[in-house]
């Protein structure tokens, strides 16, 4: 600190505490609403202290879903979301790490053509090619399947760039040493490159897990069966009409269940998260 100004330090703390409270307020109200009976929430103003229905609400949501909206059990949705998030994160990492290995460690015809082909995909997010992508997936018979949920989202220019950037910083001496010792490219990849990439992989995993878990438009389009809903879609299917028509206690319990896993990933793996966030934007 440059100088001692107790007032400014106090002000900083005050602003930060206010910020933290403002950011946490929606989460707090959601939690409170998920622990009350529907009748209590419907009273204006609703109670702002937790109620005693925590176990009842969460077990009903997990096992049976809502009665007015979608009646799909949330436990199944959480499973679907996990499959989607894990498949997207691991799939992206797997196909991009080998693709960037090929691009960095080999010279071959059309190398820069392939690189640009991957690069251009940055400019085509799902949102701008909704209908045709849906048509392709539907023609391939992948609607309402895990393959359809994950495969189209697995190609990633950002991951490929991240690994390329990292491979370029790996010293050439390592490659030379490996070659002198008689290691082929695959051996070198498995024994040298992969262990060195651990931190990049962890960082990317956190970012892509959240990306996969939070997908909305894509599952909205291709899942029409309740069995295949992800939890983010499930919440919206529970909201059926105006304020009074929804079982807000169950909707809010589901919202808590939907946001806890990715929030935990961010807070517990904060170091990797920050690294991943900063590096994928390079």
């Amino acid at each position, binding site marked *: 600190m440059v*100088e001692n*100004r107790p007032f400014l*330090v106090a002000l*900083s*703390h005050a602003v*930060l505490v206010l910020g*933290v409270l403002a*950011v946490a307020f929606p*989460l707090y*109200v*959601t939690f409170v*609403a998920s622990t009350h009976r529907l009748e209590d929430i419907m009273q*204006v103003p609703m109670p702002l202290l937790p109620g005693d229905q925590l176990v009842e609400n969460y077990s009903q949501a997990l096992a049976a879903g809502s009665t007015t909206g979608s009646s799909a059990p949330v436990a199944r949705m959480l499973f679907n979301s996990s499959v989607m998030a894990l498949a997207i994160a691991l799939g992206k990492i797997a*196909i991009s790490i*080998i*693709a960037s290995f*090929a*691009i960095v460690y080999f010279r*071959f015809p059309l190398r820069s053509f*392939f690189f640009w082909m*991957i690069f251009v*995909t*940055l*400019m*085509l997010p799902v*949102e*701008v*090619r*909704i*209908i045709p992508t849906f*048509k*392709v997936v539907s023609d391939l018979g992948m609607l309402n399947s895990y393959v359809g949920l994950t495969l189209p989202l*697995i*190609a990633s220019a950002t991951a*490929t760039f991240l690994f390329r950037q990292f491979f*370029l910083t790996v010293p*050439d001496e390592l*490659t030379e040493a490996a*070659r002198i010792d008689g290691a082929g*490219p695959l051996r070198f990849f498995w024994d040298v490159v992969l262990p060195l990439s651990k931190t990049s992989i962890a960082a990317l995993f956190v970012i892509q897990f959240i990306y996969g878990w*939070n997908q*909305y*438009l894509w599952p909205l389009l291709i899942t029409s069966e309740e069995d295949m809903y992800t939890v*983010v*879609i499930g*919440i*919206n299917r529970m909201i059926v009409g*105006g*304020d*009074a028509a929804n079982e807000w206690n169950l*909707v*809010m319990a589901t919202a808590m269940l*939907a946001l806890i896993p990715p*929030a935990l990933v*961010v*807070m517990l793996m*904060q170091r990797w*998260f920050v690294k991943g*966030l900063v590096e994928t*934007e390079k």
Partner: protein
Amino acid sequence: MEKRVVFRSAWLPYALLAPQIAVTLVFFFWPAVQAVWFSFQEQDAFGLRTEFVGLANFERLFRDENYLASFGTTALFSSLVAFSGIAISLLLATMADRVVRGALAYKTLLIWPYAVAPAVAGVLWAFLFAPSIGVITYVLKQAGIDWNWIIDAEQAMLLVVVASVWKQISYNFLFFLAGLQSIPRSLIEAAAIDGAGPLRRFWTIVFPLLSPTTFFLLVVNIVYAFFDTFGVIDATTQGGPAQATHILVYKVYYDGVKAADLGGSSAQSVVLMFIVIALTAVQFRFVERRVQY
């Protein structure tokens, strides 16, 4: 940059690239080509007959008042999201950079909204602002403000902006904090010795040195408001009331999926692609300049 030492193989690099290229071709290039192709066609109501109509879809689009209004809505929405998001996070990051005690705790408590899905963020805020039962609605009523975003266009816009900004604050905060921490302390100390107070130091030293980060975040936030906020809108206002929150991405979805206008929706997709390409180009030009400072 290139590697000096490389491996040699006639087939291995292609095999390693194959999965990525296959997915890219099937799910990126093929649909993109189809979007362009559909945008030149018109389908009858039952999808039985298609006709090549050249640029007619685009002409129809740019004569459509709703579409032009949607550009205005998107511009308003994304500038509100970008400016308020950046201002709030800059304030919080500057404060967090000042405090020594509890810095990590503040950081941890401010970054978790990044993990919340836009659609879920929309539901949380829609509940707080719900016209009859919302907590904030109640407080506003006590203050004499009649709140109902279901019928009031401006309030609906405010709701989607608040929900979108709330989710994005953590992202901006982290980048600003990293930017602030990379500013050399010696510069600030020198200014302090010369008698510049904290506010003056902020505006003449810190803020100009942060400008690369700010510009970068501006682009990222605009892209975020253009595309990623689809979930927020669909979970809350669904474009309403009276299309007050009908942003471009939502319109592509609505016209293509709900109204089944394949040609019109594809033409909109093509327009959006050009916007993304422009934004990406701006971002990349800037990345090269960012390295210097």
